[in-house]
Structures are given as structure tokens and as C-alpha cells.
């Protein structure tokens, strides 16, 4: 039995966010269009995330943005009950998701109960606003 208080939702308040740099700005701009981007190396084809200036595999500068299908599997997760700052409402579920395109990213799992979370749970991206100009790529059970 899960109470409404335990259900995992996107954050409602304005969240802290660091200023994007020139390398990362396209990712956040795409989130505002509800698109999940990652980088693909034009030289060795490696998938790259978080965004980098040079390919972390072959060091080539030919990184191009590609759109992820936003499908992946839950790699690890936690349910936070003591918020990092008062800006966050608990519970929330930081997680590492392995995307089908072959990279991992940090996110939060939403639209789920804590009991639903398990290793390799299929998940998909879902976007939510979290303050002025900030749209976050959350993940939910697929």
C-alpha cells in the first residue's frame, strides 16, 4: 500500500541549476523542446554523455548531437527522504539510467512507487519544468 506521500513525482518548485557552458547549452535547449540529446563521435562512433568537447574514447573533436529515443534500463537508484536543500520535495529518486544508445545519465525516476524500482526496469524519458527556463529529462517506467 503506497500512500500519496510516497509516490514519486517531478519537483514542483524552482530548482537550483548551474549555468550551462557552450558545450552543454544545446542539451538544455533541446530539453526545452522536449528532446533528449547526446553526443555521438563522428570518428569512432562512441556515444558520449555528459557532453564533452572531445570524444572521451578517441579524443576526436567531431562530436555531433543526436536525439535519443529516451528508452533505457534502470542501473541503480536511491529514494531520498532528507532533501539536499529545502528546494526539493521528498521523496525523490535519483537514479542512473543506461540508455539504449549506449550511454548512462543521472536523472530522477518519477510516476512510480518506490516498490516498483528494480534492476533493469525499462524506463522512458518524460520532461517536466523545474523553474524558469529549466526543463528536466526525468524517467518513468516504460
Amino acid at each position: 500500500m503506497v500512500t500519496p506521500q510516497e509516490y514519486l513525482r517531478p519537483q514542483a518548485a524552482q530548482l537550483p541549476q548551474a549555468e550551462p557552458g557552450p558545450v552543454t547549452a544545446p542539451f538544455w535547449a533541446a530539453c526545452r523542446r522536449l528532446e533528449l540529446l547526446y553526443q555521438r563521435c563522428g570518428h569512432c562512433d562512441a556515444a558520449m554523455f555528459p557532453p564533452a568537447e572531445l570524444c572521451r574514447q578517441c579524443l576526436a573533436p567531431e562530436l555531433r548531437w543526436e536525439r535519443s529515443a529516451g528508452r533505457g534500463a534502470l542501473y541503480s537508484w536511491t529514494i531520498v527522504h532528507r532533501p539536499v536543500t529545502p528546494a526539493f520535495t521528498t521523496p525523490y529518486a535519483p537514479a542512473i539510467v543506461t540508455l539504449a544508445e549506449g550511454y548512462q545519465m543521472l536523472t530522477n525516476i518519477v510516476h512510480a512507487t518506490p516498490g516498483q524500482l528494480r534492476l533493469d526496469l525499462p524506463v522512458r524519458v518524460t520532461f517536466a519544468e523545474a523553474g524558469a527556463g529549466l526543463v528536466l529529462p526525468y524517467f518513468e517506467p516504460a
Partner: protein
Amino acid sequence: MSKRRGAVIAGIFNTRQALRLDGETSRSLAIQAITGALDDAGLTLADVDGISADAEGAALIYDLRLGPAWRGSAFGLMMVHEAVAAIEYGLANVIVIVAAQAGAHRSHAATAPWTRPENEFVAPWGMFTAAEFALIARRHMEVYGTTREQLSVVAATIRNNGDRNPEAVYYGRGPFKPADITASRPIADPFHLLDCAMTSEGGCAVVLASSDRAGSFRRKPAYVLGAGADFYGPSYQFPPAWDLAGRGGGDPNGLAGRRAADLAFAQAGLDRADVDVLELYDPFSFEVIRQLEAFRFCGAGEGGPFVADGHIQLGGSHPVATDGGLMSFSHAGVNPQMIQRVIRGVQQLRGAAGPLQVKGARVALCSNGGAGALFTTVMLLGDDRPW
């Protein structure tokens, strides 16, 4: 006997540690720690020609009128290793390593500032150290079946050490049963409050000196027998994945510290069985289980049953964090807690650990970091001169 010049851990000092040290500043505690460690060593400020204090080193050299002096740039227990090398290479004769913190974290509405860097791919997800380390712990629990109860055994063991340590912030606050840990309020699943390090205030210092100065030492010297450092990236900026690996085919991040431990044991010419006491870095309960596996004290996935069988208790085969560690002794900011693992190791080798003394301790393993932080460093200390 060889004539080679070596470096000796000659002095150690912990200031008072407390949740708050009103009236103190990071600087006032640093000065107390420096003078205390020099006194412990039988040396004075006039003997000092090197300082290692992370970002504060240069200012301390100026304010203590120590110039011209060597300045270290390492962090945590690798400050000790760097100072040993500086002395062996003749860059300095007497080096003070110091770290202290007071007043940096007084509003507990948020977690301590050093636990939550402002990275754009971390901050909006509500990450802080407990969540970072929880992502490593959860992965291990899912893959190997490590249990909530096994985490509680670690935390209860370490907190019961602190309960008996008069210098610990949480002295007299036990004893704890594993069920008490599990019953504390949840923080970041699987971690409950009592699985986590405290945040406190305090300072500490370590004096390293050339063995040429042995005539003036007041205490039995301790020696660095070996060390190693495994880094996988900056802490708290990238997903803390167990399987994060480099291009070289080495062990993944979940085994951070394995290469470092292998190197340290090879340098020391020692086996795992030679270690008497393990002053492991204990930011969160699971980290002890992880390090026992990474350092090859037990096999992959065996860390949980290993701790549950009592090995890590004070009277067990592998006593850990005998001062109470970060959970119960002190966790005074970014760097003091790191150096204090070495200080406790030296106390054990001196036979100065009081009611928590490991009988006949001659070799101590100290560690820093953890896989949630993408690095682990390891150091072996001994009471036997290695040269």
C-alpha cells in the same frame, strides 16, 4: 643498517572535536593542531620547513613566518605520502600536514556545502554524498544480495567503537544494535541516518620528519610502508556507476582502491594477513563492505557476510574504524576526516588507542574516498622501519 634517509611519522594531534566548536575558527583550530602535533613530535615551529594544508598551505606559511618552505599540494592521506617523498628527496626536513574546519556548516536546513557541488548534470537531481554513495550501494545489493542488515552491522560496529572513545563526538552515545541502525530515519535508501557520517567541527595535524632527527623524537615513530591512489574522475560530477572503467582494462570504479591496495602491499612486502587494524574511511556503512572486497580482504559479493560474521569488530580478525570513524568520532569537513584515518592508524601502532587498542597492532591499513566519490586511496603504516 642502511644509511638511507627516510621519513618518519613523528607527531600527531587531534584538537577537540564537536558538532559545533563555538568561538573557534578553521584557522584557530589549525594553529592548535600544528602546535599540538609538533609538541607530540618533540619539535618546534622553528624546525618546520614544509607545510601541507590543501588551499591553506601558502597562507599558513606566510602567517606562521615559515618561509622559505616547501608546500604540499596533495589531499587527504596522499598528503602523507607526498610529504614522505619530499623528505626522502631532500626537499624538506620537517613537514606539518594540517586540516581544520569550524563554522562552515551551521545551518542544517541543507546538507553540508561540500557534499553537493553545483554541476549542471548533478544539482537538479537533488544529489548529495548520501545519494551518490547510495547509488553504488544499491547496485551491489542488487547484484550480490547484500542486505540492509549487513549495512547495519557495519554502522553499529563503528558507532560502538566511538561510544567507547572519550575523544569521539558521539562518546557515550551507544551501544547500538544493528536493529537500532535500521530503525533510524531514512535518508537516501538504502541509507538511514545512522548509516551516514556526521558533520562536525575540529582540526588535526601530522608531523613528518627526516629520520636524521630521530634523536629529538618524543614518541615511537610510525612509518609509511606503502601507498596507492585510484581515481576515476572528479567527485560528484558524473554518474557514480559501479561499472565505470577506463580504456586500460583495469578494474571498474566499484573496485576503486584495488590497484592502490595491490601497489601498497607490494611496496610493503606484506600480505593481507599481516594487517592488524583497518582504519577504513567510513562515510556510509556500505563503503566498508565495498573496501573489504576491493582491497581483497574477501571475495566479490562476500563483504556482507564477512561483516555479519563479526570480522570487523574490535576483537575480530579485521577491526575497522577503531576511533568511531566519520560516523562517531568526527567528520569535520572535507580534509580533516581524511587525515584522521592516518592519525588513528598511528595511535594504534603506538599502543595509544586506550580501551580501543588492538592488541599488538604493528601494521595498519588506512583508506580515503569511496566509489561514490570516484576515488579511493590506500596507505599501509607500520612500526617497523622499512629501510
